[in-house]
């Protein structure tokens, strides 16, 4: 088994009394895309900063490419890491090309090559038409693309992207995910940090859900779904006017899956899905059927809900004693 590209072992980071991250253990393999989800202040950015080596852990270990990222030995690895910060506004008075050339030079490209490289990157993110305009004239989406171009400098082995799709229009978002898939197939590892969940599912291998510095859940979407044990939503359509209620009323098993909150909807546990479907398909009156597994957003909300409930209970206990 090859060693992971990034690994955190029992890593904590505290600012005074505030625990921004507490005993986090995770690893990221080569060519893997990890989604990092959580509210504001959940510790996503702190974790990224630790991996980038900008801050040092209060306790525990961080290793990137086999070295502590905040050490001197890891210096040359930094050319192999790309980062897109959440809030960054580039030098307003410079043109897009000048900004990118500056960053390309700092990544170690010689002055001659830096400009050509910068133009290539601007083309990749689709803002060559504006490269000779000052950044202050750029729209939010164009700035975001410039930031992405900056993160892509030097074909990084490890990419950390904080809210990469904020401000991007649907086409740009699609282009962005295409680039992510492409980088992944070239063997780059990517950590995607987001609270925008729809659209990200197909592009990540694993997801991590954080809340107030703690890991709530980690795994592939399938694993998380299983852990959460969220029901599958089945919406059958019948030709008869009475609809689902009438048909199902005759069957006690189906009846138990009926929900009060939603008309004509069955909430079925994952393991009962097939048997229920078969049963429904055998009904003559069935016109159409709609099956929906829990998506990432629902899984995410489920874990956060569980966490909040646990916290409330703890607070409750504390008050009683």
């Amino acid at each position, binding site marked *: 088994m090859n060693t992971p590209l990034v690994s955190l072992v029992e890593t904590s980071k505290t*600012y005074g009394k505030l625990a921004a991250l507490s005993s986090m253990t995770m690893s990221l393999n080569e060519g893997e895309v990890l989604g990092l989800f959580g509210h504001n202040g959940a510790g996503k950015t702190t974790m990224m*900063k630790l991996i*980038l*080596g*900008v*801050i040092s852990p209060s306790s525990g270990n961080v290793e990137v490419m086999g070295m502590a990222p905040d050490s001197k030995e890891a*210096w*040359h690895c*930094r*050319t192999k*890491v790309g*980062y897109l*910060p*959440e*809030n*960054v*506004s*580039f*030098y307003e*008075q*410079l043109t897009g090309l000048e900004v990118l050339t*500056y*960053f390309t*030079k*700092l*990544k*170690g490209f010689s002055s001659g090559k830096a400009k050509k490289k910068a133009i290539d990157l601007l083309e990749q993110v689709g803002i060559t038409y504006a490269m000779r305009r000052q950044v202050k004239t750029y729209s939010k989406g164009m700035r975001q693309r410039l930031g992405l171009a*900056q993160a892509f400098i030097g074909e990084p082995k490890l990419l950390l992207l904080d809210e990469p799709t904020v401000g991007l229009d649907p086409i740009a978002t699609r282009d962005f995910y295409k680039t992510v898939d492409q980088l992944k197939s070239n063997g780059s590892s990517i950590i995607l940090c987001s609270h925008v969940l729809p659209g990200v599912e197909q592009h990540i291998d694993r997801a991590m859900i954080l809340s107030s510095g703690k890991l709530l859940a980690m795994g592939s979407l399938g694993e998380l779904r299983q852990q959460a044990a969220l029901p599958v939503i089945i919406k059958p359509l019948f030709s008869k006017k009475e609809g689902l209620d009438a048909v199902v009323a005759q069957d006690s098993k189906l009846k138990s899956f009926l929900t009060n909150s939603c008309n004509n909807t069955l909430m079925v546990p994952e393991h009962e899905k097939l048997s229920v479907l078969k049963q429904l398909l055998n009904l003559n009156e069935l016109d159409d059927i709609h099956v929906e597994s829990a998506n990432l957003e629902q899984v995410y909300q489920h874990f956060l809900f569980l966490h909040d409930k646990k916290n409330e209970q703890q607070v409750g206990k504390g008050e009683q004693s």
Partner: protein
Amino acid sequence: MKQILTVANKEFHDGLRNRWLVSITLIFALLSIGLTYFGAAASGAVGVTSLSTTVASLASLAVFLIPLIALLLSYDSFVGEQESGTLLLLLTYPLSKSQLLLGKFIGQGGIIALATILGFGASAILLYVQLGDASILSAFGLFIFSAILLGLSFTAISYLISLSVSEKSKAAGFALITWFLFALAFDLALLALLVGVEEGITQQGLTQLMMLNPADIFRLVNLTGLDNSEVNGALAVAINAGLSQTQLISALVVWVVLPLTLAIFIFKRKKL
């Protein structure tokens, strides 16, 4: 080294783009040419007057202007980049904190140095053409050299401010206070000490106190070489105490290196 030059190059070009170089040069040139020609207007004559009068009046103006300009140019160097998020990004690059700081210092210091040379050099050449005296060039050479050191010293001091606060507006406020303290309040306090407290301070002690202010060292450098008759007040007393030119210049250099080292130290400990 390459990283330092890349940063320096960017900062220098920012200075060019924002018209800093042009405006500082113009201010210095207009002032120095004006003073050279009209410095004696008060005594009823227009035209080039004595070298010592010119340098004395230039020095007493530069001592207010140069610190102000240096503070204005650099107060937001770090806090500005911190607010826009580029500081964090830069530090994820293969670029150390000291490289970033030195790069900025070379770039912005270069703007101040070049403006000083061009602006004050203009009047040196003018005077030389008019009077044809070679001593003008050496006197101006020393003046320009010490003016550059004064500018660099306040650039380093403004980095200290920029790294110690978390908001741009606070940095601006602190820069203004710093300027007021060094350029005005310090001298007034010295004078009060000298006049108000009898036998409170010796000549030696006064000169030593003046070493605590780079602006005063700059004044001493430029006035010790001149006719004593044209210098009065606290300075005259200090001049009589006598410190060699080399000692004074070294003290100025210390005022560049010390804040710069301290700035690097603060930057290294700064939380991001």
